């Protein structure tokens, strides 16, 4: 879940809690107010009821006085009470209109008061007026007392009920107020606690990872590009650390790329220096011979055989210079334009024979043996370029076996191609130099052991063989000689097919 989502939920819970706490408080205040209103109404009911009760007492007093004395003036309280009674009854009934039980009682009360007046009081007054002699008759008074006692009991019941209802309402209101205050207090305390907790969680889930990212950023700025942060943070924090890690990764890749380019630049710088050294030594040495011998021949007289011999040296050295230049130019051309091959069908067997003959004539210490499995061995390629490669390999085999020995040149069909190998019994290639053998200008220990060359032969050879769709490689142990081999696609089958087509 995202951090924003979590914060929304936490805020919503907090808001709900605070709202609930305030609602409880408002409820408490409301309950108290309704309790007060209820109490006031109870007081009103009680007062109105007591007034009504007093009117009833006035009725009875009036009737009693008149019945005992037959004097009309004693009837005054009775007459006054009768006038006021109906409105007072209505007042009481209105006040208890919400309470069905009290309303019933009020109705009963009104009925009994009316009955007292209608069935008893008015009749007694009429009887006493008609027959004044009857005055003071206990029978008349007894019925009145009986009826007022009943009415009084009803009043008592009414007031007691009213008081009890008022008390109950007050208790309920008080309870509700207490509970509301408790809920409100607990709610506010809980909200406060939650707000504090929320702050702590915010600090832990945002501030801490943000601090970690900030300190990570300064470490990355200080160069520690391999630094990665844990990405298990929630939501946006996780996104932030993932983005941070991506950034650090890009920076690291960028730096690695730059370092690689730097390394390449240094390597090309090193090769340039190497080239200058090679030019200064490899070109100047034969040039010194050429210039030295020509100066000698120009200055001094020699007999014909000596002159011929010296001119032969000049010729060989000039050719060596030309070959070196050719290698440089080849390399240059290959680098800039790629190889331009004059491809045709080539019988590798005869090409190898020719090269073997050429090179065996160059060294008296070496014997070049040729072992060809089958003839013809046909490939598609540029015969001059292929001859150059085989020549390079033979020349190397001779140069790198300074003690002399046998150089074996072999060719065979091998895994759908033709494999040519040149084996010598010479110095071999130390394991630590084997990876760089085909690198331009790499000459191993050749310079230190006095072996001449440009360090371009194998680099050029690889370019040529790869341009023919072939492979070139070697197997060697230092001190036990080397076998250089090359593999080219076998074109014997292709020729057969072409021939078949031609005959059709």
């Amino acid at each position, binding site marked *: 879940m995202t951090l924003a989502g979590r914060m929304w939920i936490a805020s919503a819970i907090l808001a709900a809690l605070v709202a609930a706490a305030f609602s409880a408080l408002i409820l408490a205040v409301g309950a108290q107010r309704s309790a007060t209103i209820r109490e006031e109404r109870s007081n009103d009911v009680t007062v109105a009821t007591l007034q009504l009760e007093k009117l009833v007492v006035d009725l009875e007093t009036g009737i009693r006085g008149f019945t005992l004395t037959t004097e009309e003036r004693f009837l005054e309280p009775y007459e006054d009470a009768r006038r006021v009674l109906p409105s007072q009854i209505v007042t009481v009934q209105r006040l208890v209109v919400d309470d069905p039980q009290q309303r019933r009682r009020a109705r009963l009360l009104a009925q009994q008061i009316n009955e007292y007046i209608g069935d008893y009081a008015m009749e007694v007054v009429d009887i006493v007026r008609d027959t004044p002699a009857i005055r003071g008759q206990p029978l008349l008074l007894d019925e009145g007392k009986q009826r007022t006692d009943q009415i009084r009991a009803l009043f008592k019941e009414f007031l007691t009920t009213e008081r009890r209802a008022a008390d109950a309402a007050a208790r309920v209101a008080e309870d509700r107020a207490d509970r509301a205050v408790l809920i409100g207090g607990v709610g506010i305390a809980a909200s406060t606690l939650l707000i504090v907790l929320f702050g702590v969680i915010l600090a832990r889930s945002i501030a801490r990872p943000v601090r970690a990212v900030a300190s990570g950023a300064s470490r990355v700025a200080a160069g520690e590009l391999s630094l990665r942060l844990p990405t298990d943070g929630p939501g946006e924090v996780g996104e932030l650390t993932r983005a941070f890690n991506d950034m650090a990764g890009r920076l690291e890749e960028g730096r690695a790329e730059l370092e690689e380019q730097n390394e390449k630049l240094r390597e090309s710088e090193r090769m340039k220096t190497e080239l200058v050294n090679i030019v*200064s*030594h490899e070109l*100047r*040495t*034969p*040039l*010194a*011979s050429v*210039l*030295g*011998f020509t*100066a*000698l021949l120009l*200055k*001094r007289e020699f007999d014909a055989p*000596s002159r011929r011999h*010296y001119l032969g*040296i000049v010729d*060989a*050295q000039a050719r060596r210079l030309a070959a070196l230049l050719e290698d440089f130019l080849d390399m240059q051309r290959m680098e800039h334009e790629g190889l331009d091959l004059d491809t045709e069908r080539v019988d590798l067997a005869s090409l190898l024979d020719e090269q073997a003959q050429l090179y065996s004539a160059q060294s008296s210490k070496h014997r070049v043996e040729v072992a060809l499995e089958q003839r013809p061995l046909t490939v598609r390629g540029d015969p001059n370029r292929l001859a150059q490669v085989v020549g390079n390999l033979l020349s190397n085999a001779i140069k790198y076996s300074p003690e002399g020995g046998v150089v074996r040149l072999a060719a065979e069909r091998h895994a759908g191609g033709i494999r040519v190998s040149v084996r010598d019994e010479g110095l071999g290639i130390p394991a630590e130099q084997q990876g760089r053998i085909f690198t331009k200008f790499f000459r191993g220990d050749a*310079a*230190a*052991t*006095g072996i*001449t060359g440009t360090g371009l032969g194998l680099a050029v050879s690889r370019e040529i063989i790869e341009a023919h769709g072939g492979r070139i490689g070697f197997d060697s142990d230092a001190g036990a000689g080397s076998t250089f081999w090359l593999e080219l696609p076998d074109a014997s089958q292709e020729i057969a097919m072409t021939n078949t087509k031609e005959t059709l």
Partner: protein
Amino acid sequence: MENPEPQPSQELDPPSILVCDDDPSLRELVRAVLGPRYRFLEASDGKEALAAMRELSPDLIVLDVMLPGLSGIDVLEAMRADDELSGMPVVVITAWSHAEVEAWTAGADRFVSKPFDPDELSDAVEELLA
């Protein structure tokens, strides 16, 4: 190293010269320039040269600076540190003209820069052997 043919001679033995160069054609050039008046010993690197000096005590050394392994300067320094060899005259040949100062410092007697004039080398050798 090519061992010299013991040259039977009627009069004095001709002076022997050790030619030290890694390129065979340059060794031959030195031989051709100096001519048949001398007996030649040859070495193709510094180690061979020092060994030949100790064994054969040549009268003069023609030394190329640019040698595989021990350079010509290294050879000069080794000679100067060796009582037996320190007196031998040395003509230094090099294609590196800036090696001249080094060669003088290390104790070369003459310095000839490659490509050299035949007479220059002959004169230097004759002077030293006179």
